């Protein structure tokens, strides 16, 4: 694995850590402040800090250090996690997210000075009375000759505040068995071997992780490093003793080395020493020797008692002093270098990370497989001897397709989880505090859909808060709670996912919308528009009713873009609004963009595909079931309910007299905004999976057509845009100015 790939994983894990920390803080804010929740927040920030150090993101590391220090105080219970602190920590998390983005994009880090000051102030307020006592009470029984305290205090990000706190509040109850329960520290001796540096692994990254846990190097054994003429750069020679605060559990430390245990030797305990060098087998024995010419000091002859070195307050002038702080001779190594308390190896990982490009290739190939299977089925249609095998092949193809799509499916919570931050920012800029309710966040949909959903969703939320939800004063005057409520919900329904963004605000002011539309020339002054028509005017390009342009919304750009974004995803957006009660935007999106099920129909000389997600039923009407309406429309009586008939031939350029309903087949379809309609086609020829190919990118957008596909016989068939077709046929979609159906 290349360093770039490892770095990429770091950023993916940053996202996960941020999400976990945000979920934890949200739970804290909601009143759940147990140890697990607080620890999850700490761990999230801590992991980012560790990686930031390993990859040299100095600004990110510095920021997370301050953040983590305050969280450590919270975790220790020395500072109360009240609402104000929750709010501060959430803001700090938002800035941490910006830091991560900056590190990933190589852009300038965010201006965090003010926030750092707030974090430090919150920490100082907590520790104000304690700071003065630290110098007197801080015991340094194993004072490291390798670190000058003054320097660490001013320069080292890994300033060990945890251990300072330990001296004040006492060791944690879960102090490691090998350490002194009354003492402030315990020691870990370790040495990486050749394998620890192979395949892109970097031992220093783990040491930084250790340092992030509060460990500090108190002795480095460089006695085993040979002079250059006997040196092998592939071997691991250096070894260390690190001191850790007593509250850091040994198992937590050893967990760090779980996956590299083969390549490191570790030991703990009062009598333990730095484990011996273990040279790689392939290396010559010459590499193992420590030549006399080497300036590196010889191995310590005896386990020099730590206090000898501990009393040295400053770095010893001679290298030997650095080396000999801890015994390290190979012959004195513990017979069992692996700590006895080492936990058993964890079970094999249950998940792997896959490059998205590889997954996309798989999806593409599966799409071609679906087409090939359809072609084969068509070729062998008359061969009854192949019937069973074809059925089996079709079943397997479908299974492969579903499995491949399932790999790409992700819960919508990954998008919903960004909303709290948006609301916090909006609260800061508009003064409107909004309570968020989320329903159905475990619903899954394709990763590509998810990725492209973020932008329209963000705009709709900003719009809801800025334009929909009233100010606290207005709400109170209207008899509502001062705090508005925004409800996000997601549910799967017949192959689509419905996402609703509902606010309990004032609803759309239709009179003002209409007035504005007339002023802007979007609709004629004498236009007769239904409530729905007026509501949908907000999607018209350039439309805005905001009294003043704000940084949040109201620039007149956005809602039309939202509609286009949703349409690009093959989805639709509709509005329901009630004056004084609020507005709900509903996004109906496909679960996937690649493969779907469809009904293959013939209309005149054309073969078309009706997406199965819209199909309710199909029937051949009896003559009495069809009734005329006006001069040209016909309605179908479906068990006492009248449904408009849409002759598809009228929209396909069919020349000649269209067939009558009684001569063809009527397919009852569900539309997002106009309820049900009956599509009149000549016949249904098949029902099968189809691979969606974009017509827009290969040709151009065509009204009433959602895309194209390749049939089993190699012909191209158009996929009907059922909602668009019905809206157009029923005269409900006359133009952008009077959009009824939003997409």
């Amino acid at each position, binding site marked *: 694995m290349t360093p770039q790939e490892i770095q990429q994983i770091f950023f993916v894990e940053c996202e996960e850590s941020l999400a976990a920390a945000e979920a934890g803080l949200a739970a804290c804010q909601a009143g759940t402040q147990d140890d697990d929740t607080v620890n999850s927040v700490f761990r999230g920030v801590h992991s980012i800090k560790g990686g930031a150090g390993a990859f040299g993101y100095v600004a990110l590391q510095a920021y997370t250090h301050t953040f983590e220090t305050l969280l450590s105080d919270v975790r220790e219970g020395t500072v109360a996690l009240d609402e104000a602190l929750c709010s501060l920590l959430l803001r700090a998390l938002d800035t941490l997210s910006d830091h991560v983005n900056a590190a990933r994009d190589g852009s300038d880090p965010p201006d965090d000075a003010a926030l750092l000051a707030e974090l430090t102030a919150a920490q100082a307020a907590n520790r104000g009375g304690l700071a003065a006592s630290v110098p007197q009470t801080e015991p340094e029984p194993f004072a490291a000759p390798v670190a000058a305290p003054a320097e660490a205090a001013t320069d080292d990000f890994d300033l060990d505040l945890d251990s300072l706190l330990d001296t004040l509040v006492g060791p944690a109850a879960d102090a490691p068995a090998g350490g002194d329960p009354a003492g402030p520290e315990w020691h870990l001796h370790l040495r990486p071997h050749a394998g620890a540096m192979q395949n892109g692994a970097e031992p220093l990254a783990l040491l930084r992780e250790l340092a992030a846990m509060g460990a500090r190097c108190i*002795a*480095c054994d460089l006695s085993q490093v040979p*002079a250059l003429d006997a040196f092998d*750069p592939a071997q691991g020679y*250096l070894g260390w003793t690190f001191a850790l605060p007593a509250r850091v559990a040994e198992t937590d430390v050893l967990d760090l080395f779980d996956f590299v245990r083969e390549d490191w030797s570790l030991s703990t305990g009062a009598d333990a020493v730095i484990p011996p060098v273990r040279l790689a087998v392939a290396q010559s024995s010459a590499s193992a020797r420590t030549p006399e010419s080497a300036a*590196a000091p010889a191995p310590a002859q005896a386990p020099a008692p730590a206090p000898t070195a501990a009393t040295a307050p400053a770095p010893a002038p001679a*290298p030997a002093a650095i080396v000999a702080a801890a015994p390290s001779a190979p012959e004195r190594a513990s017979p069992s270098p692996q700590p006895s308390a080492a936990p058993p190896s964890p079970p094999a990982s249950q998940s792997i990370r896959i490059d998205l490009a590889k997954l996309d290739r798989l999806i593409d190939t599966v799409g071609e497989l679906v087409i090939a299977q359809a072609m084969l089925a068509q070729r062998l249609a008359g061969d009854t001897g192949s019937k069973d095998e074809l059925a089996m092949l079709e079943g397997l193809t479908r299974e492969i397709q579903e499995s491949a799509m399932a790999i790409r499916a992700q819960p919508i919570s990954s998008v919903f989880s960004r909303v709290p931050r948006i609301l916090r920012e909006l609260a800061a800029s508009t003064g409107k505090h909004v309570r968020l309710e989320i329903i159905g966040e475990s619903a899954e949909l394709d990763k590509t859909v998810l990725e492209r959903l973020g932008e329209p969703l963000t705009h709709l939320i900003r719009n809801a808060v800025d334009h929909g939800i009233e100010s606290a004063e207005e709400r109170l005057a209207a008899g509502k709670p001062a705090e508005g409520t925004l409800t996000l919900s997601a549910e799967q329904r017949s192959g689509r996912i419905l996402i609703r963004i509902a606010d309990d605000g004032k609803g759309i002011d239709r009179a003002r919308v209409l007035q504005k539309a007339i002023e802007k020339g979007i609709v004629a002054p004498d236009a007769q528009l239904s409530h729905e028509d007026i509501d949908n005017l907000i999607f018209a390009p350039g439309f805005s009713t905001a009294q003043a342009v704000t940084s949040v919304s109201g620039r007149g750009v956005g809602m039309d873009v939202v509609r286009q974004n949703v349409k690009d995803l093959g989805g639709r957006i509709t509005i329901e609004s009630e004056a004084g009660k609020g507005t709900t935007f509903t996004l109906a999106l496909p679960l996937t963009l690649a493969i779907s099920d469809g009904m293959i129909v013939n209309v005149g000389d054309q073969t078309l595909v009706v997406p199965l997600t819209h199909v309710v039923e199909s029937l051949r009407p009896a003559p009495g079931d069809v009734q005329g309406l006006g001069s040209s429309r016909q309605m179908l009586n479906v068990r006492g309910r009248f449904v408009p008939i849409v002759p598809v031939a009228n929209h396909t350029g069919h020349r000649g007299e269209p067939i009558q309903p009684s001569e063809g087949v009527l397919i009852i379809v569900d539309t997002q905004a106009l309820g049900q309609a009956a599509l009149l086609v000549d016949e249904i020829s098949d029902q099968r999976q189809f691979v969606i190919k974009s017509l827009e990118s290969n040709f151009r957008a065509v009204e009433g057509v959602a895309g194209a596909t390749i049939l089993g016989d190699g012909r191209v068939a158009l996929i009907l845009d059922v909602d668009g077709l019905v809206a157009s046929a029923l005269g409900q979609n006359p133009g952008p100015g009077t959009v009824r159906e939003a997409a």
Partner: protein
Amino acid sequence: MTTITLPARCDRAAAMALFPDFVAAIGAEVLEVDARQAEQVGLAMLQVLVSAKGSFAHVRVMPSDTLREAARLTGLETYLLDEVAQ
């Protein structure tokens, strides 16, 4: 005096690649290591520097912040970098 300049990425591969240069410099009274461009420093390169320190009468290292941090982390700051202050 021999000067060896370290690259920005001082990982294991860089240590393997530069090691012959260090060996070739044996015999020089003073070895100067210009690490001011080092943005990433790994254990392998630190070990080469430690070995060099023991193989020359004087090794002067001009460190970058990253190298200094790595040396501090591993308890080698004084051993490796003190001479630069002289």
